[in-house]
């Protein structure tokens, strides 16, 4: 009885994996049709990002490309929510989930006016006691890399909704920006790194208009 399930899951994983690989490496990005053309925020995605820039009164970065099956439309089918804190830090999340355990999950964050790594609370229950620990939200920094016009620091151990993600962080105008992707089936660590590289190369700066 188990055999066909294993085959079906494996086939699905292969299909999705093949799809991701194709998207990551072969398909032209919506707004980057030629190597020479500068990336552009797709028209259907731009209103959401513009609205976010206006809301936080700071520049945001719209992705010109997202790993399949995600898109960067904040009102699209793979939106997973946008939240803005009182200090204007924000999170824009995109998620595709295929039961039982396949995810494609990308988060964008920024901390306007802040250059220090934020702190997160780690909560564990040990012997029935709740223990709280103050830890960096992003840790295990890897050597910085130059991607397009950005110098990013990859972080491999991250907290909260970025847990089990690889996260790229860069600083600009005394602010922190991040983009991260979940390492989860069907996406391997190596594919996540390739996807993040490609997203970085396609980021388009959106200035607030109000």
């Amino acid at each position, binding site marked *: 009885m188990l055999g066909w399930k294993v085959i079906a899951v494996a086939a699905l994983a292969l299909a999705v994996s093949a799809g991701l690989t194709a998207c990551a490496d072969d398909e032209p990005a919506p707004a980057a049709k030629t190597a020479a053309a500068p990336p552009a925020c797709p028209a259907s995605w731009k209103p959401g990002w513009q609205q976010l820039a206006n809301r936080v009164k700071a520049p945001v970065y719209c992705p010109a490309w997202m790993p399949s099956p995600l898109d960067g439309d904040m009102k699209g089918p793979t939106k997973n929510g946008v939240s803005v804190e009182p200090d204007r830090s924000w999170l824009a999340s995109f998620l595709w989930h295929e039961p039982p355990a396949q995810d494609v999950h990308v988060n964008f964050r920024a901390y306007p006016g802040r250059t220090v790594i934020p702190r997160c609370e780690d909560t*564990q229950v*040990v*012997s*029935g*006691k709740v*223990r709280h620990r103050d*830890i*960096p939200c992003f*840790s*295990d920094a890897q050597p910085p890399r130059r991607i397009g016009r950005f110098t990013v620091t990859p972080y*491999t*151990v991250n907290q909260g909704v970025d*847990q*089990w*993600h*690889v996260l790229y962080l860069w600083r600009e105008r005394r602010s922190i920006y991040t983009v991260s992707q979940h*390492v989860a089936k069907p996406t*391997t*660590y*190596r594919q996540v*790194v390739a996807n993040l590289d490609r997203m970085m190369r396609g980021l388009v700066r959106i200035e607030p208009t109000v």
Partner: protein
Amino acid sequence: MRLTRRELLLGGTAAAALGAVGVYELVDRLTEAPTRHFGEGRAPEQHLLDGLRIADDNGVEIVVPTLHHQMVTATVGSRPGLEEQASLERVLRHLEDEHPGTPDGLAVTAAWGLPYFRRHVAGAAERHLPVDRRASTSGRPRRALLDAIRFPSDPDDVLLEDNDVAFLLRSDNLEHIQEGAKAIFDAMDGVLEMTSIRKGFAGGGFDGGPGLPKQLATAAGVPGADLIPDGAELFLGFTSTQKHALGPPRIVNFETLGLVDLGPDSYFHGGTHMHLSHVFEDLEAWYLNFDFAERVDTTFRPRLEVEPGTKTVPQPPDQAASSGDVQSDFRRFGAIGHSSSMQSTSRLQADVMGADGTLYRKGTAVPQRADFNTLDNPFFWSSRPRHDLMAEGPAAGLHFVVFNPSSDDFHRNRLAMDGVLPDGTKVGLKPRARGQGLNSVLQTTHRQNFLVPPRSHRSFPLVEMAA
């Protein structure tokens, strides 16, 4: 370098699998075996390997393991007699004549499981198998060799194996291992039936470069391979063979520490105990969920100050943790260290004058590890693939091999790793809790305990008594 599917596929028959090298051929492509001629004598002990090089990392002395390892398990087909005993001894001696007992030669260790002693030499075993004094109670003696048990952090479906014999082959030269395994099983055709072949590698990065774990895992496309630090001895990133963490040569002999009663004729004097298990390692969970500080905390000891990126963390005898230290760490930090929790049982708690005349100081490590990285899933070859849950494709793991003076001694260490301390105290961690970092990313699949006779009785031990 990526491997082709053909290179990753398992061999079909036992003979083909014994001769096949698969992914492990890369070890020779990626490294040059150092020339080592430190001594060619054969000690009475089978488990000792002569001429291991000592390297230095972070100011810590490291025992450089052999590059290639292979374990072949088997059952004994029919009741062995003196003829079979002589045949196996003859082939083992021939291999010794052909190769020095050093890393550039070949070391073969024959270890025998309880099924062998029960099925084939029961009467003699009853009289001569060593008894563990510490584990015995009045009226209830316990042998130095016990059946393997499941530990709190083991999955429920861990297979407790029933092999009669296991041959551990170690060398820097893959051809020597292939030649040795083939010679043994050709000579014993019809007597020994192979049940599994397990292959692997260790080290390769002590002199710079990415090291074998990272190179082979990357070549095999194992998830998380890119996250292994360059130069790591093992997949999980830290060095396990530092000199202070390994027992001195003869400390694990049955007779050395006085833990074991060797019986009327001391038949197994110079012998020891070996535990063999296979463990899957979830590299992505380890490197994406635990930052460097937490990996140090849970591998060594909570809040240990270690420079980021360090692979070899000093563990000198005078800093060995006690049970009290482990409990105190747990109360303060909600975590225990893998090494420190085991030090409460694996390090001597007081000076001991050994039977070999050596004064073993308090804090000295007892177990001698001989484990090796593997990409087997879970074995390179199995005679019962469904039973052993053989799967296609490579998987990061460890064939854990350790020598201790007795099964009970190993069980004490392994229980301490799960937070069950030698005085019976249990720290309040759940078996695979995050506070036991390492345990939470390990998944044991198979276990068995073996007795390693001295070299003089390595071939079908006790058969001459039974005859």
